[in-house]
């Protein structure tokens, strides 16, 4: 790798960490001018930057505003780079996620953060929004054949509906990985409700999801 290319990737990464949209835009344009592969610029620049942001968020050094502003900066870079991704270099998608806030619950800031982190990590995300009827999770999973269903609840009352959702999804497709998250949810609740994973925060959701997928794929091996 040339030093120049590395410098551009570093600037993309740092621009995302510093939530500096201008810097990211400039670095992204420069990447194209200098012939850096767009896919590489996205993965080793923007996405790597969001990885650092996720860690900072996990450590509570970054908070919701910083995470969102970093994501905005990343999307600015994506807009520049995406049209230039070469056919075939897209790489393997990590998987598909159906995500939504459970029926009766209209809080979706947390869900939106998790969605960003999944997108950053290379997942295809199907966002059902908020106040999502339980059967809609089942339908969407069947339609898209998603690997993961991620359900969020912000209130203890609506959290109760998650158990039913898990049951319904399992019944139709025992092989899908189900992940729960949201303020009232704990690891204990997720286990009790029969979910495969629990996202404590936007910072560790993707790690959890990858672990969950790995376990499930191993289990499915003949």
């Amino acid at each position, binding site marked *: 790798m040339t030093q120049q290319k590395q410098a551009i990737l570093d600037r993309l990464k740092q621009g995302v960490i510093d939530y500096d949209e201008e810097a990211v835009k400039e670095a992204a344009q420069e990447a194209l001018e200098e012939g850096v592969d767009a896919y590489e610029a996205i993965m080793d620049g923007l996405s790597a930057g969001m990885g650092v942001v996720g860690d900072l968020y996990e450590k*509570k050094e970054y908070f919701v*505003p910083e995470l969102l502003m970093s994501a905005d900066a990343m999307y600015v870079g994506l807009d520049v780079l995406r049209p230039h991704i070469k056919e075939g270099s897209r790489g393997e998608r990590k998987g598909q996620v159906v995500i939504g806030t459970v029926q*009766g*619950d209209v809080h*979706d800031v947390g869900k939106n953060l998790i969605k960003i982190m999944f997108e950053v990590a290379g997942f295809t995300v199907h966002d059902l929004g908020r106040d999502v009827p339980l059967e809609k999770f089942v339908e969407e999973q069947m339609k898209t054949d998603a690997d993961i269903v991620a359900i969020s609840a912000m209130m203890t*009352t609506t959290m*109760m*509906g998650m158990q039913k959702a898990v049951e319904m999804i399992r019944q139709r497709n025992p092989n899908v990985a189900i992940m729960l998250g949201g303020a*009232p949810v704990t690891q204990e609740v997720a286990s009790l409700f029969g979910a495969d994973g629990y996202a404590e925060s936007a910072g560790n959701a993707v790690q959890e999801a990858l672990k969950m997928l790995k376990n499930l794929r191993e289990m499915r091996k003949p």
Partner: protein
Amino acid sequence: MADKEARWQIVFQPSGRRGRVKAGTTILEASRGLGAEIETVCGEKRICGKCKVRIETGFFERYGITSGPSHTSPFTEEESKHISAQEKEQGYRLGCVARIEGPLVVFVPEESRTGKQVIRKAATQRAIDLHPAVRLCYLELEAPTLSDPVADLDRVRRKLSLEYGLEPVTIDYAALRELSDALRRGGWKVTLALWQDSEIIAVWPGRVEHGYGLAVDIGTTTVAAYLCNLGNGELVATDSMMNPQVAMGEDVMSRITYAMSHREGGLGRMQGALIDGLNKLIRNVARSSKLTPRDILEVTFVGNTAMHHILLGIDPEYLGVAPFTPAVHGSLDVKARDLGLQVHPGASAHILPIEAGFVGADNVGVLIAEEPYNQDEIILIVDIGTNGELVLGNRHRLLSTSCATGPALEGAHIKSGMRAAPGAIERVRIDPQTYEVGCRLIGDEHRRGRRAVRPRGLCGSGIIDAVAELYRAGVIDRTGRFRKGLSSARLVAVDGRPEFILAHAEETAIGRDITVSQEDVRNVQLAKAALYAGARLLMRRLGVDRVDRVVLAGAFGSYIDTEEAQVLGLFPDCPPGRIYAVGNAAGDGARIALLNRHKRREAEEVARRVEYVELTLEPDFQRYFVEAMYIPHMVDKFPHLGALLGMEGAA
């Protein structure tokens, strides 16, 4: 459960203190470590029986744990000296004996608690026009004769019509049963109690001078009762208690969940616990005024929507999920006896109307007390509890909303947080040069220069101060992040994360540092952002870009430092001196409704008129919320505050 290395999750109620403790620890030891503070007189010699606690049974969604008696060491002979068979059945144990052998939810009954909570729900001095719904009428009647053998009730009616112009009047069944005897014992001189000039609810022989009424504010945490003389409006006695339902969940959502997950009798248990508590409260206020519960002729209630439903035994489930519809909007009058209240058998209970799913009768109480609908100025009323309720507007239009502030501002879910009780830090000052800390404690009179109490934790007003002061001292930046590279003995890293020590272990009553952690700051940011964003979105809806006055209602509002609250960005900029606390306005509203029936009509009207705004449906809600997480705000300016403090970034 032989695993001696295991650490189990334990939750103390009602304090909500929780944490993991080693298997084999006694409940008392655990409570000390977690700051839940159980009383003990004998020094754990198992003789005083003071440390009685109740082991709760079942699955607790709120904490994700299953608790039960099998998660403790077996009941011992020694305990049976202090614990009756019935109590044993209910799960009572001695904290110094029972050892933890699994996850537990432990309820600490009031008598076993040290550091009794300071109930900050005193009544405010207010002038109230006197038009009570219940009034006394003294009548002197002619005795019946063979030529005038008209029935007793008709005789009374005839006289009421003649002397008071009141007709037609019905009579409560319980009063009817006492009527004939009272007339004769009084020699045809009686005093009647009339409700809304339409129903005779009580009758006494002879002349009775005073009738009494009770105004009750049912808070999620605290229930306050105000005994008033209906004849002159005088506040005779005030008493309060912790809401007994706290054992079934510490916030509104967990109460609703309790009703949902205990289909068999869960709602009844919560209602029963409240009614039992109210009856005790009623006996207390009556006794302290040398009255009897029967002297109470009417009871008025305010409370949030969930408390309202549970009081009435109405399933609160649908309040807890979108679209958050209540069972009933308007005010209600039911017989107090139908609720199980032990007051005069003819007494009515008047429950004030509610506005919307999350804005209840307590807020209506605030409205009739503060009357924003009679003003020209734009007023923002902020009532902070687990939910922050906001009202904005003036005589032309009123908007209301509810913001999910969470429990952080009440001291819960804060590392060193506690309720407002003796030893709670309620004021904090941090020297920006030296980082030296000055604290004021609840219950600390500073008698003769000696500290009467030592700090135990931080209550809500202390948390607001602490975070605002950390910001002013430059320990945290406007994003809320602890600055790097500062050096002070007060700044420490715990598990690699920064914390600021407000009180060192040796100065405290708990033997541990009292700190503010990065996570605490984040929780406060979430809470204050919810409130601020709510206020801003209401302002946008109303089409105003400033407010003339900020009124802080609720017990909590009375104790926060308004300047620090502004530094933190709890509510939008407002001229100094135009932000003020009005005390427990909800409770005052209940008292006003008790003493002035015209205000009940006003309450009905305003409850219908106020437009409820669902914040999460407002366009740009997320942006408003996120921008408000900064201290004081990411983009909004605070010219008044900036001028006041000479602060950078504020103006």
